Each structure stands twice: as C-alpha cells, then as structure tokens.
C-alpha cells in the first residue's frame, strides 16, 4: 500500500467498495501518511459538499413550454434539402473517378498507338515536296507547302491509320473490359454505402 495506490483507488475508497483487507491496509497507510490522510479527508468533504447541493428549483413554465412545443405541428422535412448537399459532392467525386479511370488509360493508349503508327510508316505523315517542284502545278499555287498528290496520299494514310487505331482500340476494349466494369462497380458501391449512411442519418434527424 502506498500513496499512488490511494490516489488510484479514491473511487472505491469513497464508495465503500474496498475489500476488508484493502480497507485495513488503507487505514494503516493513512495512520502513518499525513498527506494521504489530509488528501482523502479533502476528497470526502468535496463529495459531501456535492451531495449537499441537492435539488434545483424547477421553473414553473417548463411543463407549459413542453406542452406548447408538442402542440406545434412538427416542421416537415424537405428530403431534397437534406439529401442534395450530402450526395452532390460524393456523386461528383465518384463521377470524376470513373471518368479519369476510363479516360487516362484510353488517352495513354491512343498516344502510344500514334507513336507506334508514326514509327511503322518510317516517315512523317505529311511529306513536304522538294522546293524545286513547287509552283509547277497551278492548283497548288499560293499554298506553297505540298503537292496535291502529297495531300491525297497523306489524307489516305491518315484515314487508314485512324481506322487502324479505332480497330486496335476496340480490340483493346475487348481485351480489358474489366476496367470500366470495376470502376463503375466501385463507384456504385461507394454511392450505395454513402446512401445507406445518409438515409440512417435522415431517419435519425
């Protein structure tokens, strides 16, 4: 038995919850420790003072105020005012997540495909005509950059490349269909969970 034990067991001491052995040990310690003895008597006096505070007079109008408040019609809840501000941010966040999950890989794939396409051709898509050949054809006068043949060839190549790119994208979509499904499912789950939380909240309020 020491001073620390006394401090930690004030509650049981003041509540009379010590075992007879503990009680005897505490008494023995209090007899030889004036600090603890004074401390315990102070706490006991505090407790007695608190117990002596007693009842507080209840204002007479409490019951009347309660009756008046109960008589008033309960204000109707507007579900939109409750749900909209609580759902809008999370709905926006989920939408942005879905879009970014689906857009960024698609964008990266397109870039990779374009790079690959350029490398396959082994030459720039719009091949410039040599300067000495320019101006020979009146149809291209004023443009001064490339011949009609170049343009047609370039257009044809571009069309073919785009077609090929689309085919490859579709193929990529077929090989990775889970990306869209997973992100949509994740978003829907988040929304559903949040919906359940907000609904419980709404019912409680």
């Amino acid at each position: 038995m020491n001073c620390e034990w006394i401090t930690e067991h004030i509650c049981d001491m003041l509540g009379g919850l010590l075992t007879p052995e503990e009680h005897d040990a505490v008494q023995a310690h209090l007899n030889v420790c004036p600090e603890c003895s004074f401390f315990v008597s102070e706490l006991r006096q505090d407790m007695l003072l608190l117990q002596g505070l007693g009842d507080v007079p209840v204002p007479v109008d409490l019951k009347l105020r309660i009756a008046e408040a109960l008589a008033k019609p309960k204000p109707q809840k507007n579900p939109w005012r409750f749900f909209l501000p609580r759902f809008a941010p999370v709905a926006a966040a989920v939408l942005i997540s879905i879009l970014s999950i689906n857009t960024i890989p698609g964008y990266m794939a397109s870039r990779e495909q374009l790079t690959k396409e350029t490398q396959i051709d082994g030459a720039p898509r719009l091949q410039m005509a040599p300067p000495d050949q320019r101006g020979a054809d009146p149809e291209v006068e004023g443009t001064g950059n490339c011949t009609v043949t170049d343009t047609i060839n370039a257009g044809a190549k571009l069309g073919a490349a785009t077609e090929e790119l689309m085919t490859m994208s579709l193929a990529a979509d077929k090989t990775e269909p889970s990306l869209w499904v997973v992100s949509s499912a994740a978003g829907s789950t988040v929304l559903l969970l949040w919906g359940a939380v907000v609904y419980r909240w709404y019912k409680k309020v």
Partner: protein
Amino acid sequence: MLSAYDDGELISKCKQGDTDAFGQLVDKYQQRVYNITFRMTNNHEDALDLAQESFLRVYRALASFKGESAFSTWIFRIASNVCLDKLRQKKRQPHIVLSMDSLMAGEEGDYPIEISAGEASNPEQHLLQGEMRREIRQALNAVSDEHRLVLVLRDIEGYSYEEIADMVGANIGTIKSRLNRARLALREVLTVREPLTSSARLREQKGG
C-alpha cells in the same frame, strides 16, 4: 400531481397519442432532469432550454423505447446527451457566452431558498455553507464536461455505477476510472482557487 400509473402504462398511453400521460411523465421526472441540465450548464436559461429539449426528444423517441433499460435511465441518458451536445456546440462557437444569470447569480436565482431549521438557527454557519456551496459549484463548472457529468450523476444525484454506465454508454470500470479522475480534477481546481473550503473545514474542525 403524481401519477397513479406506473411508467409502463404511461408509456403505452403516450404511444397512443395521449399527451396527458406524457405530462404525467414530465411531472415525475422533471426534477431530476432539471437537476442534470442545471448542474451541467450552471444557469437557468440554458437548463430550461435543455430540459425542454430532453423531454421533446423523449417524446419523439418513445416509439423506439423497447424497455431494455429502465425508463428513468433512458430519460437521463437522453438528458445527458442533450447537455453534452449543447456544451460541445458552445465550445465550437466561442462567441456565444453564457446567459447573464450564470455569471451573476447562484442556483436559486429568483427562487425562494429553503432554509432548514438548523441553518436558520446559526446564520454564520448558514453563510459559510452558502459560500462553500458557491465554491464547489464554481469548481464543478471548471472541470471538463465529461468529468462534470459523472460527478453530477454519482455524487449529486446518487445514481449507481451500473445506472451511470448505462446512461453514459460505457462500462463500469470506465465510469469508476473517469469518476476517479473527475474527483481529482475537482480537488485540483479547489486547491488552486482561494481555498475557502479547506479553511472553512479547518475552522469547523477546530470549532467542533
């Protein structure tokens, strides 16, 4: 007028929309609810608002009361939560000050003070006890809300540890430990302040 019915009957009537039955429940519990709200806020204006709010919540939630705990415990749990919510709200809005009567007057306010025969026969003793009560009330107001709540429920209102655990939603060990800390915190506040209570006790001890 105290009810001739027990709580169960009154609750059944309330659930059927009988507001008179609820009035009888208010009669029965208003004193103890008001004790809690006043001790927690230390002013009549807030205590009245919180007591009203507590009873309104009780009325609205009566349908969900399944009788798993005593009705009295359930009411005091609601009152305790209403008080703690309000006090937290006040802390978040520090510009809101307590009403004037909390700064100026004691718990009696404009109400008549009952003086026991023993107190009346010794005015000096009565004055001293009044001062000591004021000190302890101020100290109670200086400890944290959670500490104040267990002190109010245990030492002032005299509820058992089991009842307090049920009201506060904690186990008995936690309540004991919290009460221990609360008593030490209260003592610390009283020691730091002008130790009127201690000197008064010494005088009493010498005198008696």
